[in-house]
């Protein structure tokens, strides 16, 4: 009788549960991710110990770049479309339905109203170059109207200011006083989290 030998088996591992798990995680991350929206300027936000989370909806963001240019963004397509119509009436600029559609799909922008139709007709690449900033000086304060009309279009909107750490204070002051002129005395400054030093 030959000795019964355990047959040398090639070690195999059933990978199926691993695959299941991995794809489950992939699906989860794919569904929960929203990609960072494209911004016309890079803003290096200052850090603070504040840890209030910004709500995800009904947010109007005023971005202040390093050079002191002011950009504007508001979420919600419907708000944006009605906002642009109101702004068009105010500044006597008319927009085609296509331009309204383009505007409601955009994110942060920073162009004066007279450039707006050209900005909306421009291609994506051309738009990146158009970073004139929204006028905020007292003679031509378009930011005031943007904020005012956004609040008319969506009364629930909250205001966040996202400024570059190196932006000059007078610009920030001008933005803040533009808000204060509309009796907005409560707003959020977007900061990144730091540890207490």
């Amino acid at each position, binding site marked *: 009788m030959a000795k019964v030998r355990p047959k040398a088996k090639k070690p195999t591992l059933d990978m*199926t549960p691993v695959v299941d798990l991995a794809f489950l995680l992939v699906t989860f991350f794919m569904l929960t991710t929203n990609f960072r929206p494209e911004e016309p300027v890079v803003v290096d936000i*200052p850090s*603070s110990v504040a840890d209030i989370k910004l709500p995800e909806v009904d947010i109007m963001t005023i971005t202040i770049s390093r050079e002191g240019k002011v950009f504007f963004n508001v979420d919600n397509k419907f708000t944006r479309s009605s906002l642009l119509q109101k702004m068009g009436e105010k500044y006597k600029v008319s927009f085609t339905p296509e331009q309204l559609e383009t505007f409601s799909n955009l994110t942060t922008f920073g162009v004066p109203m007279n450039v707006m139709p050209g900005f909306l007709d421009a291609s994506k690449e051309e738009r990146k170059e158009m970073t004139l900033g929204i006028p905020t000086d007292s003679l031509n304060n378009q930011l005031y109207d943007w904020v005012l009309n956004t609040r008319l279009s969506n009364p629930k909107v909250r205001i*966040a200011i996202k*400024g570059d750490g190196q932006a000059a204070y007078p610009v920030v002051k001008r933005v803040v006083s533009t808000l204060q002129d509309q009796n907005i005395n409560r707003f*959020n400054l977007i900061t990144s989290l730091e540890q207490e030093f």
Partner: protein
Amino acid sequence: MAEIQDSGGGDHGKKGKVRSKKASTHVDMTAMVDLAFLLLTFFLLTTTFNKPQTMEIIMPDKAEKEEDQSEVKESNALTLILGENNRIYWYAGLKDPKVEVTYFGPTKIRKLLVEKRDEVAARGGKNKLTVLIKADEKAKYKNFVDILDEMNINKIPTYAVVDITPQELEMIAKAQTAPASGN
């Protein structure tokens, strides 16, 4: 990528009939796992989980008439003026002040704030330190955020962001020419 396992086919050919080898149904999943984890890693790295943090600030009402404004008790007031190069000019009280210079940092501005806060609180009663924050033209937005942050860190009960006055501009111009302390 199907791998035919050679473990099950040991006793073929003993009987005369040639049979087609039964292919195993096992599929090598390793490559698939690799792919899945690659994707997983990609999404993990590109996801920004954290929503932005914010600092809420409440500004004093602009349109208020002078008689509506709350008086600040002189002994409870501390004025900070943010200047260029991260300087903070400060003086206590409201009249005839002596401007001094300090900087950001735990041993500088924070020590000062804590000292003043405790000094005022030690007087008892309703005394609370009131910090008036002003900023010069050359101040940066970062300085502004940092000083508001210091208020939160040190739990300063009352503070307000107010405009700088021409007298104060003169005062800090003088303090600039004087040798800066702590530098």
